[in-house]
């Protein structure tokens, strides 16, 4: 047997950022016609490594060989010329333009006049060849997330990319869409293309990858091993360097009285279009209600109307005996609502301020921190230091700028602030998105503790595994309505997937 040819060989890649060694002498190779998974926690250096291939960063040391030839990739343009196409997690598509316009954007040909009909024909051919169904003339804003991802892939295939890098491609997809994507990926490798697949979903890697390279803190801990015969626990150990408990301890608990009650809520999105259409739901004390759904179906607006960040057009929201409808955010919080928002550094925290300032944001108006119109900084510091210890926030000190902390620790700062005021209702939006396995576990435990302490928890998440793991009931949101509700122990993944996709 002859040695399989490497389409990419990266040798001893070093990349430094101020204060961080993101890639520490990393070796990586990709064979023709394989799916090579790149596995690691956040901050392990996967994205840095692939961004070097995609031309966004330049390696400080090391060499890259493409088809055996030394390559110098200085820009995204160079990467495309080498046949490398990167598909980002956040789609790089212009919503107001059509599929075809997005695909030919930035190409040297046509030189001057756009010949759209001709380009549309080629797009249609490519989409047929790889089973990537999408209307070449549709505007991107009309497409579902799954379709937009197909456009991204087509964009790279149109440029003649032989090597595709997919950065956590399934994070935004429904289970059904993910399966379609996997079928497409298999058909692409069958046609001689090669794929680098970044993920921290261990199940996916076991399902799709031919080989896997695991990274931890900038180093490779397993280089190009076959996942055959490996278990999730094996992979997790390679990734984290310790055992991970996959089954969280969830105590059996009877739900209490209705805490949050939303009746026929209607609200508009930022564009002024209906986002919530007569949405009703209830969450009880001692209960976690998981709201599952594909992004953009009203989740954001739902969390905002509850917490007072977005006006209700009609409908009512009650928390126990209190009416929250269109109250101010501060008042809603005082009535017992805690909020872990989607955008941690933008909405959740004042990223330029210190850990202490952020931790006291909810309580600086009350004694003991408030003393008349002044703030007792001595007490504030003590309170903050206590919270840092209790919630195991890894920070050099309470005076550290909160924006300088890692994702997991910024989330812990928010949770510490919101939970320590003992809310009756906690609204948590994508609380573990982008967090590594260790931090995810910590955040999920905190949510479960809230449930045990008697709070109602509304968990909005795109991660179905998370919802299945910690919620008591599941509500599926689609197009601004709850289209299905079920108890988690009776949940059927197929059915949830269909509901998420809008099928009745």
């Amino acid at each position, binding site marked *: 047997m002859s040695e399989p040819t490497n389409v990419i060989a990266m040798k001893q890649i070093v990349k430094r950022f101020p204060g961080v060694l993101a890639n520490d002498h990393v070796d990586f190779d990709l064979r023709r016609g394989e799916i090579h998974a790149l596995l690691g926690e956040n901050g392990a250096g996967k994205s840095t490594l692939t961004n070097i291939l995609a031309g966004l960063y330049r390696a400080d040391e090391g060499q890259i060989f493409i088809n055996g030839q030394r390559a110098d990739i200085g820009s995204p343009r160079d990467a495309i010329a080498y046949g490398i196409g990167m598909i980002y997690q956040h789609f*790089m598509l*212009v919503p107001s*333009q059509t599929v075809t316009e997005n695909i030919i*954007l930035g190409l040297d040909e046509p030189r001057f006049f*756009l010949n759209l009909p001709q380009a549309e024909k080629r797009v249609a051919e490519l989409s047929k060849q790889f089973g990537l169904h999408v209307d070449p003339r549709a505007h991107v804003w009309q497409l579902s997330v799954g379709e937009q991802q197909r456009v991204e892939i087509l964009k790279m295939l149109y440029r003649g990319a032989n090597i595709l890098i997919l950065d956590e491609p399934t994070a935004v997809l429904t289970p059904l869409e993910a399966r379609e994507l996997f079928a497409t990926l298999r058909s692409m490798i069958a046609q001689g293309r090669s794929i680098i697949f970044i993920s921290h979903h261990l199940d996916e890697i076991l399902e799709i990858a031919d080989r896997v390279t695991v990274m931890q803190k900038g180093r490779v801990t397993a280089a190009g091993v076959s996942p055959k015969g490996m278990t999730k626990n094996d992979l997790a150990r390679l990734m984290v360097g310790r055992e991970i408990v996959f089954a969280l301890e969830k105590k059996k608990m009877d739900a209490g009285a209705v805490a949050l009650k939303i009746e026929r809520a209607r609200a508009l999105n930022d564009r002024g279009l209906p986002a919530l259409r007569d949405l009703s739901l209830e969450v009880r004390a001692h209960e976690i209600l998981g709201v599952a759904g594909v992004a953009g179906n009203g989740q954001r607006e739902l969390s905002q109307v509850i917490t007072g960040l977005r006006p209700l057009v009609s409908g009512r929201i009650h928390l126990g005996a209190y009416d929250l409808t269109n109250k101010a955010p501060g008042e809603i919080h005082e009535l017992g609502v805690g909020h872990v928002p989607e955008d941690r550094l933008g909405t959740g925290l004042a990223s330029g301020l210190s850990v202490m300032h952020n931790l006291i944001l909810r309580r600086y108006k009350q004694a003991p921190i408030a003393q008349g119109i002044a703030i007792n900084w001595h007490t504030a510091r003590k309170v903050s230091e206590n919270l840092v210890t209790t919630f195991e926030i890894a920070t050099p000190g309470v005076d550290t700028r909160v924006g300088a902390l890692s994702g997991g620790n910024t989330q812990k700062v928010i949770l510490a602030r919101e939970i320590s005021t003992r809310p009756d209702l906690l609204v948590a939006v994508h609380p573990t998105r982008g967090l590594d396995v260790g931090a995810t576990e910590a955040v999920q435990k905190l949510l479960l503790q809230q449930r045990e302490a008697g709070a109602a928890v509304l968990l909005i998440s795109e991660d179905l595994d998370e919802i299945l793991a910690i919620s008591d009931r599941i509500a599926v949101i689609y197009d601004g309505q709850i289209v299905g509700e079920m108890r988690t122990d009776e949940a059927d993944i197929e059915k949830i997937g269909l509901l998420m996709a809008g099928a009745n």
Partner: protein
Amino acid sequence: MNFWANIFSAGVSNGTALLFATMGELLAERAGVLNLGVEGMMLMGAVAAYGTAAATGDAWLGLLAGMLAGGFLSLLHAVVVISLRADQVVSGLALTFLGAGLALVLGEGLASARGVPTLPIYSIPLLDQMPFFGPVFFDNKSVLVFVGYLLIPILWFYIYRTRAGLHLRAVGEYPAAADSLGIDVYALRYFYVLAGGVLAGLAGGAITLSITPGWFSEFTTSGYGWIAIALVIFAQWDPVRAAVGAYLFGSLRRFTLDAQGIQNVFGIANPFFYDRNLQFFLEMLPYALTILALLIGSRAAIRKRLGAPAALGLPFVRGERGTL
């Protein structure tokens, strides 16, 4: 010529200056850069054009100087908002003050200049004989009016049907996507801000050298720069609608004058004829509409619904969250 032909004929001439300024602002905004300094750039263009023409005796040289002056001012804005990422509204307002102030100083004494050449005036044979449309569009018009006619389809085609236009739209809608495909976002934004400045300078020069020749200090442009900004919003960033808007606004200005000359409308006494104090309300009309448009345009949600470029007003930083 009847009453309406008169108004629209003047409207097309007035509107030509407005057209250039509006097209310039439209290009800059399509690239994602709001430039509120149009009035300042127009005044600089007007004074540079008129001053150069007075000094050299060559109107075309004057026009070129006007375009350069507008372009120079816009480059200041480009550096401040694209490279230094300052607030576009603040920088644009500062540019208005700077341009207007400089123009008034440089224009000191220009008002009394005599024998300054103007740009040629043409009539198109045959076309100018058409009833109504002849006098309105083709009879006795400045050469720049005809340049304006050509500019409308060219810009439309450029924006919607060429590769460069596709890149322009992408940079204003989602610069990160353009960047990821190897398009130089900064270079394109510089280019279109500069193009906007050159067109605003051309608009200023068109006024002093052709449409209403002469230098009348800040009254030379009489707020056209602001109307242009409002027109971009009215036009929903479309060049054809912008052109229609420019000619209509130009006509509206003339209408406010002519309407004072009629005694009776359908047998009812015209209040503007009999009470001269009411003329202020008429003259206010174009500006009141401008303020209305700017109010509408300043609401982000409404702006989005009107189809404003999604990244309008936002600086671009590669790889940073929160920027589009």
